């Protein structure tokens, strides 16, 4: 069967499945729409959280990124998994006990203030919009590469699907489609990884394979270290970033993960506190399968790539090279006109430019795997992008219909009216996300890093202190959130967009990159909050009682 046919078949079947699930799990109430009726089982919620969390970036870009960064890529691996330990131990059980619908709900109630609620809504909206634009772009990319349709058509098809199940099913529909999407994406990610691991090392478990010997009896990592240094790159297993920066970026990603609203709300969907803990464990287990495989793929792909192209005659290169050259993501320029590919670290002499996003997608072709594996990968990438987009859209729609309309603008709105607003805002959120997918702001990558920094600098301290520090009051929390947020925005715009006089790497404060600055801004948030709260009044008695209540997982 031809590749095109396989791809249409795989995507057709998976999309039909998602739509079927959406019809079966329509939302009947606002509770269904926001938190799936709080009746999701911990394992299902773990899978849904994993799909929600692993975006097009995790699926398509991360392994490629690591394959070019080597050890430095560990910041993503530890950062995007370690956050779940914080979530499980410091946030999820207590927020579940609190038992409302959204993160601004918690901030607004705990800090007895609509100002706090609005600050939280703004943070949630900024974070979610930046993210969702990236996902829609991912959907468009997959469609355009594999179905040979225009990127924009791809974005519109993706929008239509998400629209259908997010607007119809709300959180309930999203949850059960995410369970299906997790299964599709993990299968799609693992199958090529296992094939390639067997091909290169004889070991079917990629996690062990990349620490094993290749067919020449040499350890794969030693070989890759040698190849890398030979071509002038840094040794693969050691990095080029400073230790302090690696530390700060890892911390910012961990804390940012724990502060992302679309991840946090997933823990509102289970029945009880002990289920919230369990689903965090399942979620990390399901995420860990992909995250421990990604560094293996990175090593296989990098070694394979260097061995296939370096110092080879351009005319003799295999067919996949041609295919990807057509997309413009792989370019070759014969600078010294010898007809041979020189792939080197030195930009003056290097003749090959590789977009890191293609490493995962091209991998099955490089390893000469059968067509159905390539088709599976396309369906998996779409599952990853769609599931994350849907989770984010729900946060956007509930921020508007619940946190703004129900809680601030019109508290007397009926349940039915709120549900209508929820669906309308979901609809507009999808349309806006699609718009950003078709006309992506040039700074998407920069803004995604900003989203983590913002979550770390704003939400995380406010929620953690809301639970663990009874004395924390609204003045402290609001001043901390606002300071953290502004400081983060200032640093990012200064060093990413050149505002406020701009600056280069030498001007970084303490040598911390903008990606790692979230950690710094978070610390400032903590310090400001604690200082301000010492000089202002203790929170009211009923708030102190609320804090005591959420610490104990009883049901009454």
């Amino acid at each position, binding site marked *: 069967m031809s590749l095109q046919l396989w791809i249409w078949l795989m995507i057709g079947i998976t999309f039909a499945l998602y739509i079927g699930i959406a019809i079966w799990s329509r939302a009947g109430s606002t509770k269904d729409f926001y938190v799936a009726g709080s009746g999701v089982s911990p394992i299902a919620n773990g899978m849904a959280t994993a799909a929600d969390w692993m975006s097009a970036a995790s699926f398509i870009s991360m392994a490629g990124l*690591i394959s070019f960064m080597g*050890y430095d*890529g*560990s910041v993503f*691996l*530890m950062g995007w*998994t*370690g956050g*779940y*330990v914080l979530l*499980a*131990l*410091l946030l999820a*059980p207590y927020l579940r006990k609190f038992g409302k619908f959204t993160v601004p709900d918690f901030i607004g109630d705990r800090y007895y203030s609509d100002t706090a609620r609005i600050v939280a809504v703004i943070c949630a909206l900024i974070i979610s919009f930046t993210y969702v634009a990236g996902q829609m772009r991912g959907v468009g990319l997959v469609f355009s590469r594999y179905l040979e349709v225009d990127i924009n058509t791809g974005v519109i098809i993706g929008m239509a699907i998400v629209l259908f199940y997010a607007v119809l099913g709300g959180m309930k529909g999203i949850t059960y489609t995410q369970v299906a999407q997790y299964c599709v994406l993990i299968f799609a990610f693992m199958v090529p990884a296992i094939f390639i691991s067997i091909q290169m090392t004889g070991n079917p478990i990629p*996690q*062990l394979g*990349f*620490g*094993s*010997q290749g067919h020449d009896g040499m*350890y*794969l*990592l*030693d070989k890759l270290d040698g190849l890398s240094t030979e071509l002038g790159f840094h040794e693969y*297993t*050691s990095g080029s970033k400073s*230790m302090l920066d*690696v*530390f700060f970026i*890892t*911390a910012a990603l*961990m804390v940012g993960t724990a502060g992302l609203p679309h991840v946090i709300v997933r823990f509102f969907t289970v029945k009880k506190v*002990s289920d919230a*803990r*369990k689903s*965090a*464990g399942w979620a*990390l*287990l399901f995420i*860990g399968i992909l*995250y*421990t495989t990604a*560094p293996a793929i990175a090593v296989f792909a990098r070694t394979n790539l260097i061995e296939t192209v370096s110092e080879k005659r351009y005319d003799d290169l295999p067919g996949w090279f041609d295919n990807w050259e057509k997309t413009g993501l792989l370019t070759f320029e014969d600078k010294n006109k010898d007809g041979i590919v020189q792939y080197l670290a030195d930009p003056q002499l290097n003749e090959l430019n590789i977009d890191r996003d293609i490493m995962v997608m091209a991998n099955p072709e490089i390893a000469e795997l059968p067509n159905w594996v390539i088709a599976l990968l396309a369906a998996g990438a779409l599952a990853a992008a769609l599931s994350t987009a849907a989770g984010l859209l729900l946060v956007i729609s509930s921020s508007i219909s619940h946190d703004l309309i129900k809680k601030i603008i019109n508290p007397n709105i009926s349940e039915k009216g709120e549900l209508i607003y929820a669906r309308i805002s979901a609809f507009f959120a999808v349309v806006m996300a699609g718009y950003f997918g078709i006309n992506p702001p040039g700074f998407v990558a920069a803004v995604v890093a900003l989203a983590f920094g913002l979550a770390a600098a704003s939400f995380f301290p406010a929620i953690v202190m809301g639970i663990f520090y009874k004395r924390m009051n609204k003045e402290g929390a609001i001043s901390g959130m606002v300071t953290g947020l502004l400081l983060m925005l200032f640093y990012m715009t200064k060093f990413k967009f050149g505002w406020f006089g701009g600056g280069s790497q030498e001007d970084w404060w303490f040598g911390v990159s903008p990606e790692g600055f979230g950690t710094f801004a978070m610390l400032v948030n903590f310090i400001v909050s604690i200082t301000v709260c010492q000089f202002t009044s203790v929170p009211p008695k009923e708030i102190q009682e609320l804090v*005591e209540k959420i*610490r*104990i*997982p*009883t*049901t009454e």
Partner: protein
Amino acid sequence: MNKKLAQKYWKENLKYLIILLSIWFTVSFGFGILLVDELNQFKIGGFKLGFWFAQQGSIYVFIILIFVYIFLMNRLDKKFNLK
């Protein structure tokens, strides 16, 4: 639940958190970042040890930590008759 018992429960909970988070910090920030060069002198199979912690080991430990936490808290809930 009365106030005294609630405080006792909370103290136990905090003790677990401190122990588990210390391990969390040690395997990731400790072994994977601060001590990476020292640990890289040792090898398990083809992996340098520090590199392995940064890209594999820390994630396995994270997963185990959460399941240990689930176990400990379920036991604690039982001890305090919380359902």
